[in-house]
């Protein structure tokens, strides 16, 4: 029994679905952010798996792209968590269903 590309892709799909559920359903904003980070991880895993298995002229491009994704994800996490702290200061909550200032 051997491990191939499909195994990694299915793991990536499960991780992505879990992250999507977290991002859509969690009440605390930090929980939403954890879901987004999980989705980033699923996509990165898929990139690296394709880079390892699939025919390509420059197979390491996938790794370079993952490095860029990690960079952008770190910047996004820093700004998003700063926003969460800022919202908490004015509203005393970071529950996404109670931050409804723009709702008519």
């Amino acid at each position: 029994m051997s491990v191939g590309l499909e195994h990694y892709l299915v793991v990536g799909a499960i991780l992505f679905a879990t992250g999507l559920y977290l991002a859509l359903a969690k009440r605390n904003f930090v929980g939403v952010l954890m879901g987004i980070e999980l989705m980033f991880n699923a996509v990165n895993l898929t990139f690296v798996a394709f880079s390892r298995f699939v025919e390509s002229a420059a197979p390491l491009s996938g790794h370079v792209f993952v490095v860029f994704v990690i960079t952008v994800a770190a910047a996004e996490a820093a700004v998003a968590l700063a926003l969460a702290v800022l919202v908490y200061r004015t509203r005393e909550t970071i529950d996404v269903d109670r931050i409804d200032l723009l709702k008519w």
Partner: protein
Amino acid sequence: MDDTGTVAAFWILATITVGSALMVVAVRNLIHAVVFLILSFLGVAGLYVTLSADFVAVAQVLIYAGAVSVLILFAIVLTPRAGRDNAETFLRLPALLLAVLVGFTIGFISLDTDWAIAGRGGFEETASAIGEALLSKYVLPFEMASVLLLVAMVGAILLVRPEGSAGEE
């Protein structure tokens, strides 16, 4: 990837990764959820090692398991009166439905497609090749990423600065 060690490593790491990702959903305490999230990040790093992606695996441990999870923990402890029960909103069932649909669709596509599998083995080492690519072919995105990191750092500091500390308001 046929030897027993690699196959066993893949199944163990995949179980850890997916299991702790599901525990992030299931546990009813936000701090515990972060601990399981770190475990899931480490499992993904192990999967990178089985894919012979050594540089990405180390970057994953340093940035995700180290920096991002500490950042998330800071956000939790800086919001002490917010709810910590890791509960769902009213969107729970639609979100579950959508997540299951998306997961099944991606899984079905990845199993159904006939990928152009290359017969080569794993990479010997990747760090030097990635470094050369970053400073030759991808030098423009590399510089843009550095500017983006600077902007994000300044923005995050500016956002959470205590009010009135620089004469504003």
